[in-house]
């Protein structure tokens, strides 16, 4: 059977499974719809959280990012796992004890203000839409790469599937689907990783293989460092290279950690378990299941990096491996020779001069259309034959931002690099879809609960009946799916900045507000609301300024990715600095804080 036929089988079977689970876990009340009836076992919730958390970016993108960044790739690994320590220790048990449905619920009740609630709703919506648009795009891309359909058709298929299981089962359906999706994605991730580890180092455990020796007795990482230096790149394991200096790495890690702990779609997962005890255990299970993938990703990144350079650099056209040819068709990688007939891979040269010419010959199609790209390639071939008027393609591809192979190729091409059977390649497609769909559905539920529960029920119409609330909840998911799909088909500029925006804003707004709400009985409404506004306002302006308005990163040279850490600091300073000037919260609120701090012993 061909890879494509296998892909149809796997993707079809996994979709059928998701729909079947959704049908089995239909719900009839808002508690089931928003928090799965608060009856999810800790380990299952941990798995669902892991699937919810690991998006298309984690599955397809992360190993590739690590592969190209080396040490600095650890920013994402540490940031996205260290955040769970904050979440498990500072937030999860208390929010479960609080026992409502959403993050704005807590902010609004704790700070006794509908203004704070609406600010929280706006933050939650902005963060979730930025994030979900990227997921829908991810679904489309997986479809287009593996099944050779148009990206937009892929987005529409993804929309339809998510719509059915999210409206039918709400949080309950989403949770149990995510448990299944976790198994699909982790299997699809581990098999190629183990295979390539055995092939390169003879060790079946990728994490051990990463620290092992290659067949020639040199440790893989030492070899990779040496190759990198030969080709002109910074050493793979060297800390703090290029724009990733000490300050930026530190701030980016901190912003990602606090942002992780403040992301609404992750926090709500802890509302779905039975008890505070279970909330603590599910924090452990969540990070445990996540760490399986996150500990493997750096191994895949380094293996694929070594493999890619080793099988391409210095090779002639006849020596190029099969995986190169199959991924060249997708435009993820392209070779423009300089006339010597051998592939050369080198770092990007920003300003080429006579002493420092462009030597790199590996590029990608990027956002160029097929015709644009072919035009550049043909002109480049005429330039090689010294035809008059023809220009080299290097400068043009550099200008279009197409230097080097696409990062995604590192995960997508690993099964072929390891010469695995075609059905495993198909499994990777199903895994990528599982990762994207599970994250998208979790985010859509947050969007639905923010609008239908926090805005409609808690602010606009507190007398709404159960039936009305459930109907509004389902309708909002329907609308949100369509909006998210449109964002996926016509991605607005900010979607490509998911990491900077979603994590920076969550770190600067929710995280300080929730932590102070739990650990201080003294912080009242006005300082907390102002703190959130200042934190999110500063962070958003700085990111927009640096990325779109050519503002220099004036704040200690911190780039857009790390600025959330500074925004968070401002939020804490403003909130705590203003607190002494305002009256403490009402006795009822103080009693509520007392209550969420106590373990649940009074309950039968």
């Amino acid at each position, binding site marked *: 059977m061909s890879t494509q036929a296998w892909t149809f089988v796997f993707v079809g079977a996994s979709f059928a499974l998701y729909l079947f689970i959704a049908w089995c876990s239909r719900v009839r009340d808002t508690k089931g719809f928003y928090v799965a009836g608060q009856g999810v076992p800790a380990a299952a919730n941990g798995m669902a959280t892991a699937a919810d958390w690991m998006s298309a970016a984690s599955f397809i993108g992360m190993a590739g990012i690590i592969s190209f960044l080396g040490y600095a790739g650890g920013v994402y*690994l540490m940031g996205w796992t260290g955040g769970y320590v904050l979440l498990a220790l500072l937030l999860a048990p208390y929010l479960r004890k609080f026992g409502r449905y959403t993050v704005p619920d807590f902010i609004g009740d704790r700070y006794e203000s509908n203004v704070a609630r609406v600010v929280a709703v706006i933050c939650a919506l902005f963060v979730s839409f930025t994030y979900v648009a990227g997921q829908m795009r991810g679904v489309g891309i997986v479809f287009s790469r593996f099944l050779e359909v148009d990206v937009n058709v892929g987005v529409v298929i993804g929309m339809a599937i998510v719509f059915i299981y999210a409206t039918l089962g709400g949080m309950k359906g989403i949770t149990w689907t995510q448990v299944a999706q976790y198994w699909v994605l982790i299997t699809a991730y581990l098999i190629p990783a183990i295979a390539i580890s055995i092939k390169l180092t003879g060790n079946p455990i990728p994490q051990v293989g990463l620290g092992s*020796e290659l067949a020639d007795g040199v440790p893989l990482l030492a070899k990779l460092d040496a190759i990198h230096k030969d080709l002109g790149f910074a050493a793979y394991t060297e*800390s703090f290279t290029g724009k990733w200096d*000490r300050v930026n790495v*530190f701030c980016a890690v901190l912003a990602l950690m606090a942002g992780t702990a403040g992301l609404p779609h992750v926090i709500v997962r802890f509302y779905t378990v039975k008890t505070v*005890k279970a909330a603590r255990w599910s924090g*452990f299970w969540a990070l445990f299941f996540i760490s399986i993938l996150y500990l493997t990703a750096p191994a895949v990144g380094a293996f694929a990096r070594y493999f890619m350079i080793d099988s391409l650099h210095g090779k002639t056209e006849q020596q190029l491996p099969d995986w190169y040819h199959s991924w060249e068709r997708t435009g993820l990688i392209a070779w423009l020779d300089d006339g010597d007939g051998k592939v050369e891979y080198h770092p990007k040269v920003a300003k080429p001069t006579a002493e420092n010419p462009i030597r790199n010959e590996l590029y990608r199609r990027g956002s160029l259309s097929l015709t644009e790209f072919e035009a550049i390639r043909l002109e480049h071939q005429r330039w090689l034959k010294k035809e008059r008027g023809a220009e080299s393609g290097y400068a043009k591809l550099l200008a279009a931002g197409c230097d080097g192979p696409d990062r995604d190729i590192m995960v997508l091409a690993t099964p072929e690099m390891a010469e695995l059977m075609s059905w495993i390649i198909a499994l990777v497609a199903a895994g990528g879809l599982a990762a994207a769909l599970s994250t998208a559905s979790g985010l859509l539920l947050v969007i639905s609960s923010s609008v239908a529960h926090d805005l409609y029920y808690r602010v606009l119409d507190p007398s709404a009946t159960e039936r009305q609330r459930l109907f509004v909840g389902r309708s909002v998911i329907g609308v949100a799916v369509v909006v998210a799909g449109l964002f996926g088909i016509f991605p607005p500029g900010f979607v490509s900045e998911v990491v900077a925006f979603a994590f920076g804003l969550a770190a600067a707004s929710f995280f300080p507000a929730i932590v102070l709400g739990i650990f201080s009985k003294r912080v009242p409404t006005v300082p907390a609301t102002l703190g959130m506004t200042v934190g999110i306002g500063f962070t958003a302006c700085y990111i927009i300024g640096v990325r779109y308005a050519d503002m220099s990163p004036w704040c200690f040279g911190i780039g857009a990715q790390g600025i959330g850490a500074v925004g968070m600091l401002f939020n804490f300073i403003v909130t705590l600095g203003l607190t002494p000037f305002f009256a403490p919260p009402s006795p009822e609120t103080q009693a509520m804080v007392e209550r969420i*701090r106590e373990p649940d*012993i009074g309950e039968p």
Partner: protein
Amino acid sequence: MSDPKQEEALLRAANRRYWRSNVRIMIVLLLVWAFVGLGCGVLFSDWLNQFHLGGFPLGFWFAQQGSIVVFVVLILIYAVALNRLDARHRREVDEIRRPEAGGGGG
């Protein structure tokens, strides 16, 4: 048998003790978290890279493997310690509420 006012004061003291132990456990674990994640993984990673763990430079290992393992273990310790603390607190509260059922009575 017991005075309701005295019982309430005892309960409040027990709650305070519980909260203080909870915060203490949390602070210790967060210090480890900061030391390993932000310290070994970031701030001193270049210095740690002179040492090796098998084929790994140590700073690099902390950034891409070690910190994650430590994070998982930290949450595990937290869950076990806090669930134990909860159980101890529950016993204390039971004794305050029903002194006759406590260890001294019969």
